């Protein structure tokens, strides 16, 4: 009896370890990390309407940073968002809305009117793509620089040093992905895939399946 018991224990331990290894290696569920809280803000958008972090609760928001006089890097960012905007139907979002918020770091020149003209010129759908800023430059620096960890600096000659990139925030206001550089696949492909991963988690992570999703977070089963 005792031999049977101990054999059973060994088998159980082996099966558990194999199961955990299989979960880690094959990653049947993939997630995006919950990196940190997105900063709270109160901006004015291109229609002169308030746009706050609370407005974006309950939806996935892709943030980008620009100024309307910005040369090539911002243009490339806009092209990526335009591609995502046109291909968003490819992603199974389970009814969760997606928005894009492009934050201007140049509030002196980028008034709501200027942002509206800029948005129209690049083909933005203002229903889902907002352009916003605040004249409170200190708070803007806090939100963009410290909160979204996007470096920018006013060069004083009408130009800014800016590290372009994207930040993806979930409906709880948690930063789930940052895109600081162009990867082997295009940012648009990657961001669209990540939106699908977020939507899957939001939809499926209930009841006992929530345990599996938490295990995926625990074992760092992150979507590439």
């Amino acid at each position: 009896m005792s031999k049977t018991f101990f054999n059973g224990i060994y088998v159980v331990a082996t099966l558990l370890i194999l199961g955990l290894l299989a979960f880690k290696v094959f990653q049947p569920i993939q997630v995006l990390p919950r990196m940190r809280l997105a900063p709270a803000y109160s901006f004015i958008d291109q229609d002169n309407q308030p746009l706050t972090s609370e407005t974006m609760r309950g939806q996935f928001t892709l943030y980008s940073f620009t100024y309307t006089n910005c040369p090539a890097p911002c243009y490339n960012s806009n092209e990526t968002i335009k591609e995502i905007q046109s291909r968003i139907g490819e992603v199974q979002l389970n009814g969760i809305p997606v928005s894009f918020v492009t934050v201007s770091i140049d509030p002196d020149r980028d008034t709501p009117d200027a942002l509206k003209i800029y948005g129209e010129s690049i083909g933005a759908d203002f229903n889902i793509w907002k352009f916003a800023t605040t004249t409170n430059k200190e708070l803007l620096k806090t939100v963009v620089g410290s909160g979204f960890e996007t470096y920018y600096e006013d060069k004083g000659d009408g130009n800014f040093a800016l590290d372009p990139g994207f930040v993806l925030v979930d409906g709880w206001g948690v930063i789930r992905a940052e895109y600081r550089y162009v990867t082997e696949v295009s940012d648009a492909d990657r961001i669209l895939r990540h939106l699908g991963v977020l939507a899957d988690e939001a939809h499926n992570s209930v009841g006992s399946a929530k345990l599996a999703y938490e295990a995926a977070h625990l074992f760092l089963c992150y979507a590439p």
Partner: protein
Amino acid sequence: MKLKVFLSVFVVILGLAAGVYFLRPHTFHGTVIQSPEPSFDFTLTGIDGDVSLSDFRGKMVLIYFGYTFCPDICPATLANVGQALRDLGSKADDVQVLMVSLDPERDTPEKLAKYVAQFHPSFVGITGSQEELDKVASLYGIFYQKTEGSNATGYLIDHTATLLVLDRDGYLKLVFPFGVTSDEIADDLKYMLRQ
């Protein structure tokens, strides 16, 4: 022989079930954050002078943003946190609750100290200038703005009503939504204190 096989299978199944049960991840009642860096350190003013977040390294810190004139959400949340700490017993010595007032016009450090003591004697109330609060609140994901109230209440402050939990090293680990119960808070804190 058949009995041995049956027993072996039974032991394996029972063991697997027990293993899965005991090794299952703790189900948190809030959103778990896997922050790779410590949270923003800040210094605000309490009744005994400057209070910095880093003063509490080594303790688990709960931060709640609110104000003393808050009619319902703040007292409900703070009451739940106070009850959770009482449920923790002596383990509550390893937990520090900070209430950050978003209403420095009306909430003096003295008034804040009296207010938070109603919920638990260990709570610390702090506030600062509008500029300081703007920065701290933003970096902790707390949106707030003044809104009109009644003659009786004066102005109100709409604010994000989440409760934030930082570990002993100052890393944000958990965000409780509004409505979390004292049992749920105590359950998660007990688990985190064991880590």
